[in-house]
């Protein structure tokens, strides 16, 4: 069959693994499982590919983080992203323009300095730069309020959609069945372990279910009586008219949560924190967001005042209480595996997390990481810490 995605009417009756969610996380997991030799992999999605957060994000991939584990993982993810186009035979417009994090207060400056030290200790070329150097990197920047910035020229931006299509196409080549418009509506167990999943098009018997439903993952877990503490929060974003290339790095500002970069099409793509968003699966756009974003962006780059917003949209962040993901098996229910809680940075996590999950499930590798990020930490109270989260 030459099509990348399958018709729900062709859903098989048996599978070795069913992955719930054809976002980047689910597809990366499915691809890596198939690559490691798992035979019958099925991926279900209730909507179209790119309908979830994976089709709605800013495409930022960076290794500038404030925790050792994130730095280590993102470094590996970036390496996969850099090779993705030629390995998977699809252009993802990976561009290493760097990430420039701005601090406008001494507290934020101190926070950046600590992270830079940690990142350098892990071999990253990140450095602290002053206002004058910020202006050299982005000449249009109004730098009067900037105390200091951190800059890693190796960080990058990508175009998110082709990552999803690329994983999907590669999955297909390995025989994985990808079924959009096929919602998971039930999970069956024998009391101890998973036995099958239900969809409107029939059941699939399987011993293993990977819940990669992102912001919807608590809903999926609830189908089998598992409570997850992550919650969806709307995060908005917009794109401007396409301009000739002028902006090299992705620029971010920690206090407001403003970030923006220039896509390969020339559009400025960016967003900002909006503290007023209530929890919930809401993907509507707001006027408040536009106001906050336009004010912060034109304040920082006054020459963008005449530039027009072409389109705004929203997706859901998948927020966990401690900012770290929830992955691995669930105590007491064999065969139910979680791969969720990736906040607002799951896109860049997916390439490496899919790989790690496959090796963990098949060979028990990285057991320590999967223990640390397991759901059970919320019961035992061993919460973690990450401070460089945007939005």
């Amino acid at each position, binding site marked *: 069959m030459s099509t*990348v995605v399958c018709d729900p009417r062709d859903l098989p009756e048996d599978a070795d693994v069913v992955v719930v969610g054809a976002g980047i996380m689910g597809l990366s997991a499915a691809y890596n499982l198939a690559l490691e030799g798992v035979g019958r992999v099925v991926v279900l999605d209730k909507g179209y590919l*790119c309908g979830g957060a994976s089709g709605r994000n800013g495409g930022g991939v960076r290794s500038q983080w404030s925790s050792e584990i994130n730095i280590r993982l993102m470094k590996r993810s970036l390496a996969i992203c850099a090779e993705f186009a*030629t390995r998977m035979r699809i252009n993802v417009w990976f561009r290493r323009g760097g990430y420039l994090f701005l601090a406008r207060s001494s507290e934020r400056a101190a926070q950046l300095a600590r992270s830079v030290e940690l990142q350098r200790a892990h071999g990253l070329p990140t450095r602290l730069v002053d206002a004058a150097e910020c202006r050299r990197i982005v000449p249009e920047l109004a730098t009067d309020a900037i105390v200091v910035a951190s800059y890693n020229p190796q960080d990058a931006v990508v175009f998110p*959609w082709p990552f999803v299509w690329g994983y999907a196409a590669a999955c297909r080549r390995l025989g994985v069945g990808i079924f959009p418009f096929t919602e998971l509506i039930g999970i069956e167990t024998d009391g101890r372990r998973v036995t099958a999943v239900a969809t409107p098009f029939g059941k699939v018997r399987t011993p293993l279910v990977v819940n990669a439903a992102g912001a919807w993952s608590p809903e999926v877990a609830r189908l089998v009586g598992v409570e997850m503490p992550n919650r969806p929060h709307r995060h908005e974003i917009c794109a401007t008219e396409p301009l000739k290339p002028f902006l090299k790095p992705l620029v971010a500002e920690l206090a407001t949560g403003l970030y923006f970069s220039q896509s390969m099409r020339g559009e400025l793509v960016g967003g900002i924190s909006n503290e007023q968003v209530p929890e919930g699966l809401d993907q509507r756009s707001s006027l408040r967001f536009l106001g906050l974003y336009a*004010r912060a962006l*034109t304040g920082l780059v006054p*020459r963008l005042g005449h530039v027009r917003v072409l*389109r705004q949209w929203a997706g859901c962040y998948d927020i966990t209480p401690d900012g770290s993901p929830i992955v691995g098996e669930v105590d007491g229910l064999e065969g139910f595996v979680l791969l969720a809680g990736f906040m607002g940075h799951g896109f860049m996590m997916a390439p490496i997390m899919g790989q790690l999950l496959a090796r963990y499930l098949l060979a028990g590798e990285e057991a320590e990481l999967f223990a640390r990020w397991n759901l059970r930490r919320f019961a035992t109270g061993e919460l973690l810490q990450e401070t460089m989260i945007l939005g």
Partner: protein
Amino acid sequence: MTGGDRVFYARGMCVRRRPIQEPVELLVDGERVAADRGEPVAAALLAAGRSLFGRSVKYHRPRGPLCLEGRCDGCLMRVDGVPNVMSCRVGAEDGMRVETQNVLGSARVDLLAVTDWFFPEGMDHHHMFTRFGPINRLMQKVARRIAGVGRLPDAAASAVAPRELDVDVLVVGGGRSGIVAANAAAREGASVLLVEEQQTFGGEAGLLGESVPVLGPPVDARRGVGAVAVYQEPAVGFAGREPTDEAVRWVLLEDAEGLLRVRCGSLVVATGTDPVPPPIAGADRPGVFSARAALRALQWGIAVGGRVALVGWGAALDRAATVLGPEQVLGPFAPTQVSAVEGRPRVEAIVVDGRRLPCDALVFDGVRSAAYAVAAQAGGEVAWDGRGFVVLADDDGRTHAPGTFALGRVTGRLFDRARAEAVGRCAAKGAGLAPSPPLVRPPPRSAPAPLPAQASDKIVVCRCEDVTLHDLEEAVQSGYRDIESVKRYTGFGTGWCQGKQCVALCGQMIASAGGDDAERPFTARPPVRPLALARLAKLVDEPEPR
């Protein structure tokens, strides 16, 4: 150079039919061009024989104005240091600097036009050059360098605070149905604001020379004001507004000065339709105009061509034929009869049933797309009615969104005067009215239209993003069959006009290519038309965190 001795002239083929009243001079790519003060810059350029305004995004194909109504990307130019200005929307002033964008060389000899020639079948930007790392990286470098349309603006713009307005009834669209509904609502005692995006009231009827109802005095009627977005949210940190706990409907309007943030009891949408360019090879070139564009140009005193081929059907096309004059027109021809539009770059001939007919412009009409974006953003449902996407409304104009009404062509249904008045009265009675089910459901889609045969030139189905019919077919063959997926995979509908010109056509073509029947269009994302950041920067006034 003054207007005096060159009042009537024809270069290129556009003809100025009225003498210039107040001569001014524009500086177009360094050359002086005569204009009438205040007339649309695009009109002045057309009258001066310039129909090539710029180059398309991907293949650098020649482009010129198509709609003259601020809905297409054909007239984008850099004006006084601001990129991507719709030159049909700005009035000519003496000394105005107008520049062609997105060319390497000049608009006429754009070196990057080789991409069009190099990729005759179209460019598969997803998979090209993915074999070898170094070549892939080089390709990406080149691609980035040539991306984008305009250069960064020369200077900063000062932020403008929005004006705040509360009315009982807001009517969007000052065509016949909008005016009748507005008058009826005002007669009930409601405060009514009616906005019309164009500079003249009357919409389609006005262009056709039909009678336009008179606006009653209590209606606050404003021209040149467009509805640019609708939101539903509480006021939190909104400058000049009391905070609210409850979600409120906000309609953002834009006029020449800036934005108006409107809170209204009822929203009445009478936004009419947009013309859809026919899928003909080469029909994206300069010199192709909608019938409405031809009629607008005539109102500005300009004939879009000396020998005009008519393609399609409909009252506006007939009217254009009449006003242009029988000796100036050819046709009308059915779109399926026309296999190609040729020219270098402007239209020089069309090929009809295999015969080459010389002409200097093509004027089309026929398929229309409801201008549903405002109603959809307000929560109204949009569905396919067999010809295009329309807003679902009942006999009283009620849509699925409480307090939002729709009437006229945007609904795809007939609203006579009595019905239009009833809508106005209903709207005046107030918000909160639940739609009275069942709403009229459009009939199921008929069998998909046959695809036009691939021709020697590209059949561009989305002008803003240079998406071809071939691209749609490829997406469907890859298994991306639904409209949201095809939109993403091909990029159609993601350009300057956000799909106004292409969504109806592509919806149909996807089905014709074997994809799904799209029951509804892709999500109508705000804003309805591009909105400058400086105008948005003072919407919120709470302190910014440091």
